[in-house]
């Protein structure tokens, strides 16, 4: 157990940990996020969308890697669009990049400890926080192994451990379940549910199932715009209602493809959106 400081339990001065208005973010020459309005509170927010929809660019903007081209982005009440006042915000962020790089020669413990140092955690808290983060991702027995000896799934979990070591208020996970076996994915979902109480978690993924199982909230984006937002049940409901689509491929309910209600809901909404855009 960790003792909480007074400023940790003090009421926050902001309504939403993540708040974006007309957010536009460039990825190279393309406007990958194009006019997004967003207000995210504590909970697990699943970010779904096809390849190239702008998921990773959005997460990178939220992680303060790239600066928005226009619009406003407030993290923990701080306007980070201008690229200033970042230090305080960054202490409260945990980030697992899509391409998670790491120092191969470090052990898991050393690597997580190094990130804790980079996040300027109070030194006294670091050893306990490092152990807790490693335990939570199930790498306890691998803590003193070199990073380069880990399998792909273990590396991903080590990546999650470094992202949560500072008990972030905003946790950004880009494709966290890639490489995890079914068992590990179940563990990961449990971890997400644990975190949901007091953390604003944004999980970008291709896997509709992860979102359905562990997210309190689902966002679908396509072409840099928010297409749908609701609870996972809404996603499933969209498929069941067969909202406005044509029976073209004889698949599941209402012609939408997918093996589960959530997947069918996802494909239904995407197809509807694309058809509307094409008009």
């Amino acid at each position, binding site marked *: 157990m960790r003792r909480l400081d007074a400023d940790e339990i003090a009421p926050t001065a902001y309504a939403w940990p993540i708040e974006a208005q007309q957010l536009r973010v460039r990825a190279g020459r393309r406007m990958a996020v194009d006019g997004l309005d967003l207000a995210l509170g504590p909970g697990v927010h699943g970010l779904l969308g096809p390849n190239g929809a702008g998921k990773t660019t959005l997460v990178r903007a939220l992680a303060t890697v790239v600066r928005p081209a226009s619009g406003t982005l407030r993290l923990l009440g701080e306007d980070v669009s201008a690229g200033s006042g970042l230090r305080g915000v960054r202490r409260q962020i945990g980030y697992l990049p899509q*391409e998670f790089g790491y120092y191969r020669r470090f052990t898991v413990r050393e690597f997580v400890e190094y990130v804790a*140092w980079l996040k300027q955690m109070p030194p006294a808290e670091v050893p306990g926080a490092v152990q807790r983060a490693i335990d939570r991702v199930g790498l306890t027995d691998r803590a003193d192994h070199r990073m380069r000896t880990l399998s792909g799934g273990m590396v991903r979990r080590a990546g999650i451990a470094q992202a949560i070591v500072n008990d972030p208020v905003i946790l950004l996970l880009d494709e966290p379940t890639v490489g995890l076996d079914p068992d590990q994915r179940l563990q990961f979902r449990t971890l997400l549910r644990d975190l949901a109480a007091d953390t604003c978690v944004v999980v970008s993924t291709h896997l509709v199932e992860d979102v359905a199982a562990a997210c309190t909230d689902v966002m679908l984006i396509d072409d840099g715009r928010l297409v749908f937002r609701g609870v996972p049940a809404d996603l499933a409901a969209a498929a069941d209602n067969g909202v406005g689509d044509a029976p073209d491929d004889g698949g599941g309910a209402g012609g939408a493809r997918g093996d589960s209600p959530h997947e069918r809901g996802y494909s239904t909404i995407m197809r509807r959106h694309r058809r509307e855009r094409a008009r």
Partner: protein
Amino acid sequence: MTSRIVRIEIRRSAARWAGLLSLPLLLFAFGDLGRGSGVLATGHRQTLVLFVPLALGVGAWQARRDRRSRMEELLITTPRPAWHRHTVTAAALVAGVVVGAWLVYALLTGYITAIGAFTSFTGVAVFGVSTLFLVAAVLLGLAVGRLAPWVVTPPLLTLGGFVLMILPEAVLPVESEAHPLPGTRLLIPAETGGVSRFETLTGSALAAQATWAAGLAVAALVLALASGYRRLAAAAPVAVSLAVAASLLPAQARDAVVLDPSAIAAVCTDDAPRICVTAVQRPALADLRDPARDALRILASKLPQAPTSVSEAVLDTRAGQYLTPDRATVLYADLPTTARTGRIAVPAEDLLFGLLIGAGTPPCPFAFDLPRAQRAAYDTARVVAALWLLDRPPSSVPRDPYWWWWLPDDAALTAAYDALLARPADEQRARVAALRAAEVTCVAGDRLATLLGTGE
């Protein structure tokens, strides 16, 4: 906390490779440790030709780690200023270089002490300055690697560093009276000969090198840690240290080398007659004592005005004479010591023979410039004197290459020896005494003629 991170970096960064940069000194100097700790200093300077470039490469390789590990994205999102990270990495590399170098130094000094060979503070100072150059190199590598985090940077930097280290040898003429090397040659620290085991660098030359190396190290740190236009500040330590170093260096490089007083200090037997060697050759004293006393006794019994003590023959090449400039009363011992232990490498009777060459005199400086034929005659006369003193035939001349630039011509030696022995005993004695007298004063002349009485 930061100290924990430094420890992690020492374990996991290239710091360990940096620590290995001085390790080859173990191989390089091990065979010469009988010559004392000055060998560590000059030996280490020689390894710098290779290991300063490698230090540059190690630094540059370390600087590329964030890109190589694809960590840059994650690092951007952390609040700690980048220069904190870079400082920790630099500290780990410096710790690696310094600890590695001094571990090797301590290990070898321990061995030197164990075999009773010479250790001195001047060697420590020279080695310290060499270490500083390695530190500067590894930091420069880090700085360049940070400015140009490319795959080709470490190998190119290593190659460039190597070219720079051998540049003075490549562009400057071979040192001679006509072409003295400039003092600024010492700004590139690699030693390529010219410092004997009796010599060391002057305090001001060492201070100049230390200042220059420290200036480079500080400039490298500024380059590695600062960002944007602040990097221009790196020019200041370079300019200041260069100015200070230039003012401390002598005009000519050879004036930066002096006899090391602690190395040439006499170490003598307590009892008379006094047998002395230089501190550098201390391990040889025990082996020298008995043959040296035999030589004194033989000289006293066979010649007038024999020497009364023995000193090691150390030629001060700058002054053009031996360190103890008293050829009349001192028997000069040129010591054939092994480099590894510093003990005498030849049997006692061969050493005795060596002591009596020239009837107990070292070669006169003029002999070094004689044409080969005359030098051969000069040596023949001196060897015959030793044979006469020892009552030994020419066939007993030691063949050990240590004694000879070239072996004396056996036929000439035998002829001269026979010619001397053909004389009456009194005249033989007078001839050898005349040779010794000529060699003591170093008057010019044909010594073989003096010995055989053919020149008068």
